[in-house]
């Protein structure tokens, strides 16, 4: 097969802000694209193909791939749109990876973007769900996550304060990230004092709505030498989009007797097997995780194998996921600080690449060899990628 190794050689992002009234969507995309091309040290003409994603109903643009060519640089090039809801950005990253790994293209530009200020975000998210069975009772992302949080607390004894620790950690990390939207040196009490949106989830536990874009240049092994930056090699990718209905997770846990988040567990198992990870806390040097709200920062550590089931609060409170810990989580400030939804998953990949390349500035974790990036979305879906400093020994699908 023609399959080849793939490296990330350039990253561009806009500043993440609550409202970018100064630009149209196409101009916002263009900001990230220009930054990525400049970072990679190449011109538009050298890009072989473009992959772009967002969530259509947020901005109300049909066929974003064709609408955005003036900003994306896709004029006269192959362009494809990939969209999977919250996982869109990570799906775009994986899509760009496969564009290159197929041997069909050498230099592929991945773009994720969203202008949430132009959207009714919750209104659009509700339409993701089945019009007959789910939609009448589904009150949007916040309420859905509150159900997960309630179940998690009742199962493990985790507290609201444990979750608030995540909100404090990620927004404190964001102080080091010039692109982040919400930067705060808050305390747990500050998060606890914010109003409830849907118990036990408070305003301070939720990600913001953000305008922003991200672009990443993927290169074939044959072409990486053309670029000034050291490549962040893609060591492996895996995803699971297991479910179609909001009730599926509850059925899985309460009726079938399964775990809460098998999509993340099954994807993790496949990814770690491909990459050879047996002890993630030791082997993974930094993680950029799509945490849509604070409780996810506890629960996902378990599904990602960083600790036993129920061990999330103890692990996080030990400080091992803070800057300076064994595996810092979200040095960028993560999704709790910035959530331009279609860009968010790709930003995790971009941040992981900067860490692997040693180019993350004030948010750099020392000596990163392996970095984990995830995307969350759909109906408790999970996309996962591992990037590495060293060229992977073998080519992995």
């Amino acid at each position, binding site marked *: 097969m023609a399959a080849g190794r793939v490296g990330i050689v350039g990253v561009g992002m806009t500043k993440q802000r609550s409202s970018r009234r100064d630009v149209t969507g196409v101009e916002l995309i263009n900001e990230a694209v220009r930054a990525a091309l400049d970072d990679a040290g190449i011109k538009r003409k050298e890009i072989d193909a473009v992959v772009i994603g967002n969530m259509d109903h947020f901005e109300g643009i049909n066929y974003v791939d*064709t609408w955005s060519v003036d900003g994306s640089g896709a004029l006269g090039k192959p362009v494809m749109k990939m969209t999977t809801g919250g996982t869109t950005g990570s799906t775009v990253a994986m899509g760009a990876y496969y564009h290159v790994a197929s041997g069909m293209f050498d230099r592929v530009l991945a773009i994720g973007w969203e202008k949430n200020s132009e959207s009714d975000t919750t209104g659009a998210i509700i339409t993701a769900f089945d019009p007959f069975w789910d939609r009448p009772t589904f009150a949007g992302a916040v309420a859905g996550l509150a159900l997960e949080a309630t179940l998690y607390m009742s199962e493990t004894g985790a507290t609201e304060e444990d979750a608030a620790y995540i909100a404090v950690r990620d927004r404190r990390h964001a102080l080091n990230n010039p692109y982040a939207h919400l930067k705060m040196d808050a305390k747990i009490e500050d998060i606890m004092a914010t109003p409830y949106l849907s118990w036990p989830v408070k305003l301070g536990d939720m990600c913001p709505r953000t305008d922003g874009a991200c672009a990443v240049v993927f290169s074939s092994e044959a072409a990486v030498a053309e670029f000034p930056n050291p490549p962040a090699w893609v060591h492996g990718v895996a995803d699971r989009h297991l479910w179609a209905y909001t009730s599926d997770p509850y059925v899985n846990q309460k009726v079938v007797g399964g775990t809460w988040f098998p999509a993340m567990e099954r994807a993790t198992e496949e990814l770690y097997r491909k990459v050879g990870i047996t002890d993630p806390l030791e082997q993974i040097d930094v993680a950029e995780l799509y945490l849509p709200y604070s409780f996810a920062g506890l629960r996902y550590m378990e599904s990602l194998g960083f600790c036993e089931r129920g061990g999330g609060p103890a692990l996080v409170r030990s400080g091992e996921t803070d800057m300076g810990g064994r595996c810092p989580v979200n040095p960028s400030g993560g999704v709790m600080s910035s959530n331009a939804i279609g860009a968010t998953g790709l930003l995790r990949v971009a941040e992981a690449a900067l860490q692997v390349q040693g180019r993350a500035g004030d948010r750099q974790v020392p000596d990163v060899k392996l970095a984990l990036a995830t995307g969350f979305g759909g109906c408790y879906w999970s996309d996962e990628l591992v990037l590495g400093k060293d060229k992977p020994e073998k080519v992995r699908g």
Partner: protein
Amino acid sequence: MEPVAIIGAGMTDIRRERTSDTYADLVFEACGKALDDAGMTIADVDVVLTGSNDFFDGRTISSMAVMDACGSYDKNVSTVEGDGTFGAAHAVMRVLAGWGTCLYCVHHKGSESVMPLITNAMFDPVFERFLGIEAVTSSALQARAYMDRYGITEEQCAKVSVKNHGNALKNPVAQLAMEISVDDVMSSPYISDPIKLLDCSPVSDGASAIVLAGRERAGAFARKPVWVKGIGYNCDAFHLGDRDLARSDALAAAAKKAYMDAGISEPATEVDIAEVSDVFSYMELMWLEGLGLCGPGEGGALIDSGRTAAGGDMPVNVSGGCLSGNPVLVSGLNRIIECALQVRGDAGARQVEGVGTAVAQGFNGPCGQSQCVWVLGGDV
């Protein structure tokens, strides 16, 4: 490009309104048929790709509704939004990158869509949308630009409609199989001058699926593999005023790439059949020019010559084309599937003799802005 094979294909009937089925039901039916055709089960599938469009489906993560139906449970799965030719191209990438087999499915329920609103949303919200321009009216501008440039007549466009609706009589999945005359088309009411009712593809429901495999796995299943010899796709300018609407530079570029992959230097003589996205009748003529199957402006003379009729030396849209059933997005994959069936010799009553090389074409965006071309053949 390393060869990838189509080893199974399934299509639902294309119908005006499948009231008894959700679009997930359609996907389940199409995937089952594709797996049966390949002589495999879902357990033999390594990775799944779906195709959908949130606007047409009225759901903001439209692929979520088919996650059960497409059999992707506990498999890697992803979604390409847009025409089936593009989604299937990404499925080819997955196989080339090392996945053994890939199931790709795409669905559309036009009966549940409000087409003018949805296709109006293709246009820029600040500069264009308020004009009310949408798929039919923008295509009418393109048709007029094309006809004026080259002297193509409404009668020549009508001949495409007559040919394709007639071809559909031999295609059991087609929605509008009709024996009609040029006069019937010419006397049908104008929808948007110069496009008349019978120049338009219908609103349709349907789903289709294919199974792809790499060289190592292609021979392991029931069907003789049909080989993907070349794929090219390319995008034109967005604003209609930024383009020469009378020709498709994107299609020419996409075709050039696909032919280069396939080792085709003289497409007009080397291509045996073509399936193109004749969403409006003039498009068949324009796209044949873009594909290099005739010269610029020669589309009208080509339909007059009869060469593209089912019995001609280069039949085009023997399936009946989009004019005889147009589940948007699915239509592109249906073009590929018809080519695969013809190459395989499994096209039933509409089988063309001796199809060695077949070309399929689909597009995304207004007036065929983003174009994709596939070349299929029987040998590696």
